[in-house]
């Protein structure tokens, strides 16, 4: 109960009535009325004391005193601005780091799909000895949907970047084709209009549903969007509804813009061997066991696969059985990729928080000791011990609340920065890590707990203050207790140890990023711009497509700012890839895997513009076109695999293909390049001329190098105009420089090295501030004894050396204590390192050395101050 039970006025009225009753009695006893009241008042005694006691008896006193404590706290914080600023900054750092990291963890790892009962949802995916490999094909899905009984609903979905046309304007969106019941299975309600249902699969009429995000971005939330049409390929779909704002699709990180029904008669669905679906999601019937459902679905799946035409070794490896996976949090691609880095960041943030707590506790202790006299006086004046402790805790919590506000702002700013980092690259990842109630609750709990923990020690010390001794002996003597010095030094050593753990992590992550940047990519990353070009519908034959690509390339090459230009299906480290099966004379593949090769179609000039070097033979020219011998280049890995020591030049490469195999003659060998990932070894690659394609491509990547350094972005407009002059319906998208494409594959490494080094350095600064604070404070207190020492003949340099020696001991103790923890932490993060190992002594030596130097440097000023103490003044004034 916070409110007062009885009002002051009621109490006053009672006392007034007492006095009147007493006066009445006195009158009755014969006293003149005029005197009676005054006499009654006199007899009652001190009214104020009675009121005060009444007031204290009320429960809301607690609240009133809190207000008092807060006001007092504000005043005393204002009196020590340097202390307040350092503490608030420390807290802001701790709370900010934790809130920021938690909001990322929440967005990427924890958040459940905003659908009805997400825990009932499961994904159905195939798996083999090589691990999981996506859902079965559409015909497999049909059988599963029709024959299983454990699910209340099952839906298929497949997403891709689509070239669409709205009001005659081309654009690229993230599109998703789903079975008609998709939204029913998820249990979603429309934001506007209606969502799809099973009837819509007939495509009569063809309808589509757009996301709230897309509605907002593209249509400015215009309700008139219902009824508008979108052309996808040669089909026209009518918008009938908008999905709810909080729903982004089932793949965290890649929000879906438009959803339309799967065309059951479409090419992709009819082809039973194409494993093209993105996923199958199903809702377990209430009470149905997941194990039974899995067994049921698996047996249906196996019977379906028994008729497959795939080689049995491939099936065993990739598609042997069917398994259920919780879909409560959506597809796990993002979680798999970021769970480890995020756990590492969580650990780092936790250490930062511990360090912040230690730092604040230390500063509070030092301040508490220097306020010893104040407390002693308050105690002696009659303040309760509990009251002083409460005052201290209130002040600490006040500090934490003051720090939490900039901390939350810091977190918000950092998270926005990280969000934008995620959005870079060819495959932008959209995460919504903004503040929500879970993040705010987390921040509040962290703030409160940290405040409590760091306020406890100083409060406990204040609790033990003996007022008599404190006043008699003064603050100087009190502070000299061995216990308090040990405690302060212990806290500094603790901070040094924590800083060591953080710095070791930072050094290892920075080294990892540097090593990965030093990795030989096999191609040049400077000065090239890439963009995706997509042909309009209608180019189904190789001839016309090639003609368009030729013209586009020529128009770009004619631009004055362009040094070189080339076309390819994809570029290295773009995240795209293709593979095929080949037959090579003289090579017997042991498994299907052994016969695979990755391949790319490229125009002449591709190797030159990317700086990939030719090892043997020749590169492509513009004469490698229709009507001449089909030629191919292979990379070193492919040459080694298929030809060993033999010379591959002149040999033939026969691609297996539905609709007839196709043979290329090898004319050269190029150097290996990194393709999917900087950490993996290069893959076997074949390069085929764009003009002698293995199959028709609707989409190519243009690579342009500018004539002037750093001029690549200036090329964008003329290049776009040049291409659109060939065919205005070509869709240009995904404009990105080769350098940022490489950078975006290093996203987690950049994130970890950036954040860990920022936190590591800040930790070191905090530890130095802690050391500096403790030393300055102690030297201030020891003026007298230092003065005596010097009067007895100690030289200033001896005094200074003593201070440095003391701090050296504290630092070394901290380093020794921190080392095992640093080693354990590094071992836990070892798989994330590259070019450096957890067992590498250098990372420990470098971190410890850095810490020791910074620590001694921060002890230098206090040491000099100690050396400059004038014994005469010190002795005279204490």
């Amino acid at each position: 109960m916070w409110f007062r039970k009885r009002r002051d006025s009621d109490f006053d009225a009672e006392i007034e009535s007492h006095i009147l009753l007493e006066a009445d009695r006195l009158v009755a006893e014969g006293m003149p009325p005029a005197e009676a009241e005054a006499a009654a008042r006199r007899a009652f005694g001190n009214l104020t004391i009675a009121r005060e006691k009444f007031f204290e008896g009320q429960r809301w006193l607690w609240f009133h005193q809190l207000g008092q404590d807060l006001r007092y706290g504000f005043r005393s914080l204002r009196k020590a601005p340097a202390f307040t600023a350092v503490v608030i900054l420390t807290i802001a750092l701790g709370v900010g780091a934790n809130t920021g990291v938690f909001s990322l963890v929440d967005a990427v790892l924890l958040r459940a799909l905003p659908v009805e009962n997400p825990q009932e949802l499961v994904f159905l995916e195939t798996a083999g000895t090589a691990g999981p490999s996506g859902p079965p094909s559409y015909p497999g899905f049909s059988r599963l949907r029709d024959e299983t009984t454990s699910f209340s609903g099952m839906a298929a979905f497949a997403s891709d970047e689509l070239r669409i046309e709205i009001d005659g304007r081309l654009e690229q969106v993230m599109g998703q084709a789903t079975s008609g019941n998709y939204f029913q299975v998820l249990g979603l309600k429309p934001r506007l209009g209606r969502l799809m249902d099973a009837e819509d699969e007939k495509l009569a009429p063809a309808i589509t549903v757009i996301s709230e995000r897309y509605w907002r971005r593209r249509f400015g939330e215009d309700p008139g969007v219902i009824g508008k049409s979108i052309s996808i390929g040669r089909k026209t779909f009518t918008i009938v509804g908008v999905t709810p704002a909080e729903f982004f699709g089932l793949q965290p990180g890649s929000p879906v813009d438009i959803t339309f029904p799967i065309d059951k008669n479409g090419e992709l669905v009819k082809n039973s061997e194409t494993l093209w679906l993105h996923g199958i999601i199903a809702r377990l019937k209430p009470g149905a066991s997941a194990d039974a459902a899995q067994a049921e679905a698996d047996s249906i799946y196996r019977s379906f696969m028994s008729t497959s035409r795939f080689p049995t070794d491939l099936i065993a490896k990739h598609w042997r059985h069917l398994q259920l996976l919780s879909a409560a949090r959506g597809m796990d691609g993002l979680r798999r990729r970021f769970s480890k880095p995020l756990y590492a960041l969580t650990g780092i943030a936790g250490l930062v928080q511990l360090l912040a707590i230690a730092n604040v506790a230390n500063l509070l202790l030092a301040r508490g000791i220097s306020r010893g006299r104040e407390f002693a006086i308050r105690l002696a004046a009659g303040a309760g011990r509990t009251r002083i402790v409460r005052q201290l805790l209130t002040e600490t919590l006040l500090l934490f609340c003051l720090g939490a506000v900039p901390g939350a702002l810091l977190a918000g700013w950092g998270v926005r920065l990280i969000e934008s980092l995620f959005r870079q690259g060819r495959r932008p990842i959209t995460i919504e890590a903004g503040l929500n109630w879970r993040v705010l609750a987390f921040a509040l709990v962290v703030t409160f707990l940290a405040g409590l923990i760091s306020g406890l020690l100083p409060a406990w010390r204040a609790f033990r203050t003996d007022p008599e001794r404190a006043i008699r002996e003064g603050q100087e003597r009190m502070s000299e207790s061995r216990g308090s010095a040990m405690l302060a030094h212990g806290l500094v050593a603790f901070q040094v140890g924590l800083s060591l753990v953080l710095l070791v992590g930072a050094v290892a992550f920075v080294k990892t990023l540097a090593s990965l940047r030093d990795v030989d990519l096999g191609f040049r990353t400077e000065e090239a711009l890439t963009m995706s070009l997509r042909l309009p519908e209608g180019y189904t034959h190789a001839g016309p497509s090639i003609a368009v690509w030729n013209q586009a390339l020529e128009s770009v090459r004619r631009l004055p700012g362009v040094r070189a230009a080339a076309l390819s299906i994809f570029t290295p480290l773009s995240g795209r890839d293709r593979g095929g099966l080949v037959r090579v004379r003289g090579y017997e593949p042991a498994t299907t895997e052994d016969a695979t090769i990755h391949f790319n179609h490229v125009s002449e000039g591709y190797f030159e513009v990317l700086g990939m070097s030719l090892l043997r033979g020749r590169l492509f020219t513009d004469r490698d076109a229709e009507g001449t011998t089909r030629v191919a280049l292979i990379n070193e890995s492919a040459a080694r695999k298929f030809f060993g020591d033999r010379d591959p030049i002149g040999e033939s490469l026969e691609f297996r293909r539905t609709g007839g195999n196709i043979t290329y003659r090898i004319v050269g060998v190029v150097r290996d390049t990194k393709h999917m990932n900087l950490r993996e070894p290069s893959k076997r690659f074949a390069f085929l001329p764009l003009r002698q394609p293995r199959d028709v491509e609707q989409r190519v990547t243009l690579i342009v190098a500018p004539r002037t350094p750093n001029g690549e972005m200036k090329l964008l407009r003329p290049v776009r105009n040049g291409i659109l002059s060939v065919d205005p319906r070509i869709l240009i998208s995904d404009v990105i420089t080769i350098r940022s494409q490489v950078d975006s594959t290093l996203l987690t490494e950049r994130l970890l090295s950036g954040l860990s080094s920022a936190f590591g350095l800040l930790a070191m600064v905090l530890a130095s501030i802690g050391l500096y604070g403790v030393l300055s404070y102690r030297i201030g207190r020891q003026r007298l004894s230092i003065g005596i020492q010097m009067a007895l003949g100690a030289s200033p340099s001896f005094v200074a050396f003593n201070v440095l020696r003391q701090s050296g001991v504290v630092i070394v103790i901290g380093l020794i204590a921190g080392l095992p923890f640093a080693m354990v932490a590094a071992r836990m993060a070892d798989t994330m390192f590259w070019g450096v190992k957890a067992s590498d002594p250098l990372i420990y030596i470098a971190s410890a050395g850095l810490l020791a130097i910074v620590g001694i440097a921060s002890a230098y000023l206090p040491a000099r101050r100690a050396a400059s103490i004038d014994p005469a003044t010190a002795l005279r004034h204490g």
Partner: protein
Amino acid sequence: MSTRDTENERIALLQGTLDLLILRTLLFGKEHGQGIARAIQALSGNELLVDHGSLYPALQRLEAKGLVTAEWGTSGNNRKARYYTLTPAGKKQLISETRQWERIVAAVARVLAAENPSG
């Protein structure tokens, strides 16, 4: 701002006694604060002087503990006054505290009246 923690120990005894006396005065019916003070003074043969500064907080406390209830009423000579009534819990408390008081008095009396054991 207050000396509660240290003072508590000192007034503990007095407080308990005053509480007991208040409960005792209310045994025969409701009474207001001034009446209670008068009654204690009168019944003790003017030996006990009630400190009004303590009386009202004591009443407040007893009310908070649920040993008495209070309501505004009108006195014999038409003054508004806050009347206190004993609750069942208050009666029980009165009995147990009276018993305890008797034991203390008896014990103290025995000690005071005892022959010097060593002499």
